[in-house]
Every structure is written in C-alpha cells, then in structure tokens.
C-alpha cells in the first residue's frame, strides 16, 4: 500500500520539484511586464519604481518551483510583496481615547467624505453601540451641511444643528461643546473638499486639526484616482498628519492602484473601503483582495500557491520514507509542528496521508491554536540534537532543563513526549502493515490512533 501511496504522491509531485533559482534576467523580464500592469492599474510611478526595485532584490536567487515558469514565480513574489507593503492585517478605526473620540475627515472635492462620515457614524453607533455626533464644517459647497443633516436624519444619527454664517473652526469647537453636554462618545467632523495646493484651505484644515486634536484623521480618497494619489496623500499627511485612509468607490471597476500609492507614501493603513452609496456600504480592508485587483494576475498567484502547497506535500513524502524506515524522531515531530503552523494549524503529518480522516477531524475539533504549536516547537528546540533522536535519554533533570529553556512547565514537556510516543506507535503499526503488503483500509489506520485527543493540551 505504501508503494501505491507513494506513486500517487509521485504523480502530483513529479513535476513540482524545485528547479533552480531565479536569474536576474528572468526577474528583469517579468518585472517589465509587472511595471506596465502596475502603471495601468494607476499605481503612481515613483511607487512603481520603488516596488520594482525592492522586488528585484528580493526575487533574484529565490527558488523556482518546477512546473512554474520564472515569470509566474516572480508574479507570486510581487503579489506577496505588495500585500506586505499594504499591511497584512486590517486595522480598525481608533477610538481609544477618553471620550469624546474625535474623527476628522478630509480629502479632495467629491471624494466621498460626507458619505463616508455617515457610514462610519452608522457603523460605530450600531456595531459598537456608541453615541455618535456628526458635524459638517463645509461652509463652502452649496448645500453641503444640508446633505449631512439629511443623511443624519435618515440614519437616525444626531448632527450638529446648522448655524448659518459660522466659520469652520467655530463649528468644530461648538461640536465638541455639544458633544460634551450630550455625553457623546464619538464626534465625526466632515470638512469641505479641498485641493492639496489650495494654501488657504489647507491652512484652515491644519488649524482645525490642531484645535480639535483628533484621535483619528482620515483621508478620504477615490479608488479611481490616478498618478496624483501620491501628491494628494503626501500633502494631507504633511499638513494634518493623517492616521488612516478611507478608499471610496471600490464598487467601481478601477484597478485601485491608488491604494498602494497612498499607503506607500504615507505609511498610513487603509482603514475602510466605501463599496457603494448606501449607508451600509462600508467594509474593512483586505490587502490580498486589493492586490489581486491591482495586479490582475490572481490566476497566476493561485497557481503558484498550489504548487507551493504541493512542495509541502513533497516534504510529507520524505517523512513517509522515514516512517517506513522506522526513523521518526523528535526532529520530525518538530518539522510537523512547523508545517502545521504554516498551514494555519489545520493540517499536519497525518492529514498528509489520504484516508486518515480521524486525525483530521480531531485536529479541526481541537482547534489547535498557533500558540500551542509554538510552545511545542520551543520545547523540542530546547532539547539537544541527541535528545531529539534518542528520546529514551530524557530523564527528570533533562526534562526540567528543557522546560526551563522553553519557558514551560514540566508537564508540557511530558505531553509532547507522550504525543511523540503515540505517533511513533501508530507509525510502527503502519510500517508492519505495509510490510505485509496488504492493502490497508484507511479505517484500519484510524483505529490505530488512540481515541484521546492527542493534539490537545
């Protein structure tokens, strides 16, 4: 049966061995295409140049998976690098301050500020159960204050009463007073649209910023924005030290290069996305989605990802060989723990072998968390190489040393050793069955596995 199993693996793995590393010429050629793709997706030129340079350094010399062309490999590296630049996790609106938390919203004309203000207010009110006040400081655009007032009424969010003729800074101050009186948790200030080169209005904005001292200063920008994205973002960052970006009109069909342009020049996270005109059309930011949109090469990326997974399977194959030879030691267990970590804690040694449903189930049920895997790895790490191969030498004093080294209790060390023993037992039995040359029913293997949940603490 193991022969059969190997064949099956061999089929998948056959053309997926590593095939040398990326040459400079490969990388350069692929990046020429990437450059055009990025520019056509409206990523700003200086940002494209920087990305290409960084990726080039990163990519040259990296191993290529077989069945993957060098160009495909480079695109995957580009993809991962861009996700890294955009920040791998989504960041929430920051309200961590003594109330009222003030959010200042600014941006170019028509970028979607007023709409975003009301969407945010609605989200904070309904999802976080906070008392929100919105106020429009836009005394310039016709009916701008009226717009926010109507939106507030529609969404049942209180807005600061309009006083004709009051100046923006005074409206801001009044909103804080009103907020304090009403016991408001969050005040969101809408401002008039302004060009980044409009000195008078930019000065006004920085005065407002300095006066209200917002905990969060959001630049609202249109995802359709072209090359100018860098100038806009830089200017607003300089004048009002923005802390986050809201990217609107993501429901359009633009490739959205502005996202990475703005993130790169400001270092500010993209905090929310506007996905429509309605009040609920606000989403959290997912870097991978934006990147696949900008790059437009999602197919290639998933192809390479699949190949990579299969390479991981190749490692499993090596392990299988070791099992057959009865050589499974703690080094291998550690490899498995690492593997499980890499695959999000859901997969591992046994899941690599087809048909072993029980382990898979146990693992998913036990909800193996990354911390536990880290602990176990740390425990094995603090063993000497000899201890890892010859488990029998582990006496009480050695175990104490290991526990201290890994910063855990001695019971944790014992637990790892127990796991190891159980696993090697299973493997020995598997080996025996394999030798007999019988065609083993996967259920039989399942039955070999102790019923207790050995992946659990």
């Amino acid at each position: 049966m193991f022969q059969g199993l190997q064949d099956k693996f061999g089929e998948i793995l056959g053309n997926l061995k590593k095939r040398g590393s990326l040459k400079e010429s490969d990388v350069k050629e692929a990046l020429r295409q990437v450059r055009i793709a990025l520019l056509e997706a409206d990523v700003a030129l200086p940002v494209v140049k920087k990305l290409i340079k960084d990726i080039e350094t990163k990519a040259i010399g990296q191993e290529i998976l077989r069945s993957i062309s060098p160009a495909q490999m480079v695109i995957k590296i580009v993809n991962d690098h861009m996700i890294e630049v955009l920040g791998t996790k989504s960041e929430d609106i920051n309200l961590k301050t003594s109330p009222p938390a003030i959010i200042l919203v600014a941006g170019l004309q028509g970028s979607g500020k007023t709409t975003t203000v009301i969407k945010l207010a609605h989200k904070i009110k309904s999802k976080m159960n906070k008392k929100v006040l919105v106020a429009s400081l836009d005394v310039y655009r016709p009916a701008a204050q009226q717009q926010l007032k109507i939106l507030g009424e529609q969404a049942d969010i209180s807005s600061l009463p309009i006083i004709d003729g009051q100046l923006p800074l005074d409206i801001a101050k009044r909103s804080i007073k009103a907020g304090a009186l009403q016991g408001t948790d969050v005040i969101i200030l809408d401002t008039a649209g302004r060009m980044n080169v409009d000195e008078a209005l930019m000065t006004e904005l920085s005065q407002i910023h300095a006066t209200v001292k917002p905990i969060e200063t959001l630049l609202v920008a249109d995802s359709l924005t072209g090359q100018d994205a860098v100038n806009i973002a830089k200017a607003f960052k300089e004048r009002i030290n923005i802390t986050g970006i809201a990217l609107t009109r993501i429901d359009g069909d633009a490739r959205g290069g502005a996202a990475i342009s703005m993130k790169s020049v400001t270092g500010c996270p993209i905090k929310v996305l506007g996905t429509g005109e309605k009040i609920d059309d606000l989403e959290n930011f997912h870097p991978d989605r934006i990147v696949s949109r900008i790059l437009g090469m999602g197919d290639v990326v998933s192809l390479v990802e699949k190949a990579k997974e299969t390479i991981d399977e190749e490692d499993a194959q090596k392990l299988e060989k070791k099992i057959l030879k009865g050589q499974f030691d703690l080094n291998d267990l550690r490899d498995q723990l690492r593997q499980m970590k890499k695959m999000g804690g859901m997969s591992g040694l046994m899941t690599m072998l087809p048909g072993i449903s029980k382990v898979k189930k146990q693992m998913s049920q036990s909800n193996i968390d990354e911390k536990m895997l880290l602990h176990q790895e740390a425990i094995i790490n603090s063993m000497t190489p000899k201890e890892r191969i010859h488990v029998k030498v582990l006496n009480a004093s050695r175990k104490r040393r290991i526990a201290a080294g890994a910063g855990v209790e001695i019971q944790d060390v014992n637990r790892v050793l127990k796991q190891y023993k159980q696993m090697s037992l299973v493997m020995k039995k598997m080996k025996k069955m394999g030798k007999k040359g019988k065609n083993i029913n996967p259920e039989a293997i399942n039955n070999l596995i102790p019923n207790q949940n050995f992946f659990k603490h």
Partner: protein
Amino acid sequence: MEWVSKLNNGLNKTASGLSKNLSTVFKGKKLDPQTLEDLEDLLISSDFGVSISKKIVDSISKEKFNDFDTNKVREFLSKKVSEILKLRYLPLNTENNGDPYVILVVGVNGVGKTTTIGKLANNFVKKNKNVLIAAGDTFRAAAIDQLKIWSDRSKSEIITKPTGTDAAALSYEALVTAKEEKKDILIIDTAGRLQNKTDLMNQLEKIPRVLKKIDETSPHSVLLVLDASTGQNAISQVELFNKSCGVTGLIMTKLDGTAKGGVLVSIAERYPIPIHAIGVGEGIDDLQEFEPESYSRALLGLL
C-alpha cells in the same frame, strides 16, 4: 490666461524636475535613452497611460535637435500632444432654431456634474439665453438643494421634484415645460453613477428615450463630466457612458489641483468625442473653453 497659470501651478514641479534631468543627461544631437525615459515618465506621471506615452516619446526619438535645450524638447512634445487634442476641439454650440437645446449631464459620482451645470448655466445666461435646469438627481441627499443654489447664482430657472421621483419622468416634464416657456436651453442634472453598474446605467438610458418622445432630436448634447484626478479608469467611463447614452461631449473638471488630466489625450486618441470645457475651480466663473494648444502646453509645463 488665468487657467493656464492655475494648471501650471501643479505642473511646475514635474516639469522643473524634468528640465534638470534633461540638461544633465543630454549628449549629442539625438535624445539619449535616459532622456527619452525621463520624458516617458513625465507623461506617465500625468496620467497619459503607458502605451500612448511610449508612442509619443517614440515619435520624438528620431528627431534631431540642433541647438538643444529643454524648452525645445518640451515644445516639440506639446505639439505632438496638441495634434491629438486638436482633433477633438469643438466648442459647444447651443443654437437650435428657436427650440430648446437639451443638454443631459452624466458621469460618475462626485466628478462635478452639478457644479458644472451651475457654471454652464451662468455662461449661457450671460449670453442672454433663457435657461431651465432640471434637478434630475433625485437620489443623493441634498442634491436638489445644491442645484437650487446654483440656479439662484446663475439666475436660471429650475424644475424640481421630491427626492425619489423617477428621473426620466422629471426630464420629460422638464422638456414639456421648456417648450411651453420657450426656453433656449434645458440642462438636466443626473445622479452620479459608476459605469459598471448596469442597473443604474439602464435607468440612465431611459432619460434620452423619453426625451425623444417629445423631440426626436433631443437630447442635443450628452455631456460626460470627467474628474482630472481620475486615472486610467476615465477611459472605461467614456466607453461605457458612451455605449449607454451616446456621449456627445466631454468636460474635465478639477484641473486646478495637482492632477494633470493626461488621460484626456488617450481618450482623444481613441474616441471621436469633442472636448468642450475644463473646470478649474469651484467658483461660478471657473469653467473655461477647452483649448487644445494651451492644454497641451500646460501638460508639458510650458507657459
């Protein structure tokens, strides 16, 4: 001209960066590869798009410059650009033998449709035209109030219906009124919409359809408003709005910022649609007739 200097405000930075490069890198009579690349970069940073930037720069690569200076190269490039833009030069002519000339204004959200209508109306009124504006954005909050203020400012009349009314029905009524009251010009505002939203685009198509029931030749103009800060997506906007309601003219707004609006050159090359005007501010007088030559010069940082 005032708007040229406004346009140049933003352009100067890029342009002076370029001239520095040009004077240091230039060797010999032809432009060397580095200089050509810098030129291409200049165009790309102005939202021309990759392929047309390449094309324009390629056309200059064989050119010989005897007494070379940066201005000369820029002059040359701006000529190339204005050759393309000139094809689309056509001022808006609202003459319609005494019948109302109907202008439908369309575009993506927030590009400046309503503001541009205010400016247009003001220009027409100043030429002693009788103008009626229809508040066809019956969707966005306070869109009607906003247009009302513009009708006051421009001294033109306005027809409104409550928010939520069918825009096509309002447009129909507006044209009936315009005919009855012998208006020279009817301008219809519409709600902003993204061109990839089929349902919203279908709703938009209804407006010309009902207008034609009254006057088969209407709308006489379908103006697509573009925002200068928009990148390559502007091309898709032209493509899809044109498909849906036959765009007859373009207006590009917000050229008073640092965005250069170079995508207009790509659009001019692809679509035989006239460019009528540009917006250079939020004030009522901040609408200028489109002039290919000065636009091209401004794009290249020439005064």
